[in-house]
């Protein structure tokens, strides 16, 4: 009996094999993505403050507002807020004020941030 050659394989067998290879490729990519994005995602460090979660940003703004209450130096407060990047200091403080209001911060804390926002808006106008 003559040996079986490739040319003897039925076309249906070929397409089935190709189908399984494609399935394996897709499954492999899916597994790789799941591993790289969910199971063991890239860990970041040495981050910049603009990546901070909104509540941490707001707490930072609250710190600046607490200090501003005593120091009454809007320029210094603006410099402290400048770590968040390209937004204007008053806009940064205003965002935090909105977050604080939306998340039921203490009235005294909201008042402090409001005071800072007002001061920075006035200060921005002078600059």
């Amino acid at each position, binding site marked *: 009996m003559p040996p079986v050659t490739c040319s003897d394989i039925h076309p249906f067998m070929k397409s089935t094999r190709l189908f399984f*290879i494609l399935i394996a490729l897709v499954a*492999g990519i899916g597994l*790789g993505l799941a591993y790289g994005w969910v199971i063991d*995602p890239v860990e*970041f460090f040495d981050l910049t403050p603009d990546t*901070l979660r909104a509540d941490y940003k707001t707490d930072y703004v609250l*710190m600046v507002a607490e200090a501003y209450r005593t120091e009454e130096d809007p320029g210094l407060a603006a410099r402290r807020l400048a770590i968040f990047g390209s937004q204007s200091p008053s806009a940064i403080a205003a965002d935090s004020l909105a977050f604080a209001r939306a998340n039921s911060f*203490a009235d005294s804390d909201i008042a402090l941030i409001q005071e800072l926002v007002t001061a920075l808006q006035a200060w921005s106008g002078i600059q």
Partner: protein
Amino acid sequence: MKRIPWGVLLTLLAGFALGLVYAWTINPLQVYDSEPVALRADFKDDYRSAIAASYAATGNLPRALARLSLLGNSTSTSTETLNSQAQRLIAAGEFAEADQLAALALALENGTVPESLPSPISTLKNNPPLQASAAATFPPTPEDIPFQFTETPQATDTELAATQPVTDNPTPRPTRTLIPTVGAPFALVSQDPICDTNLPDGLLQVLVFSSSRRQVAGARIIITWDNGEEQFFTGLKPELGNGYADYSMSPDLIYTVRLAAGSDIASGLAAPTCQTPAGESFQGGIKLTFQQP
């Protein structure tokens, strides 16, 4: 016997590798909603300075502690980090900021860790709203008023894996707690003439200790004489101790020394005349030691 489908397995592995390359390199997860502990070192310094400025304004130690813990330090390492940052700022001429950091470090050493710690960081994972419940306390402490904390047990090294408390309930009302009060200045516990030929002539050495006998960095020292005044700081020579500072006295002047944070006044200070074993005279120095009671 069934053949192992090597082709399919190899393709699966190749796909897995492609997926990993895409997920880790080409399009990694975007960074947002990070925590302060992941900040770059210089931004952590900024964060710490803001905490110190806030503490200087409110005197709210529990809130400062909770915020410092966000940077991944325990109470003891926070103190060291604050002192170290204060020294760097002094060297850079940023005295006001350094004072605030040193004051917070001192308060950490003398203050108490709250019994009920705020919620741990992990509880913030699902973005619950941050509720700052620690008390806002006013008025601020004037720069030159010394800090005194009544009832000051030793600070513990309890790990503060905690952040601002998170709750869905309304925030508790502010209460007045731990306001730095006037009083209990640093005491001048010793004033000794030093006759040591190995030291420069007329060297005034000052050592500043906290109540827990730890050296205090960044303490501002004011030295005055007829028609003159200068200031210098502890911690600029860390190899001699964080609480060490020195000053070169002129032989013909009488000095008065005190700490800006409030202390006993060491007055009538003049470089003593000493003699070497061979009988030669030289200008000795003085060593002052201040300690918070």
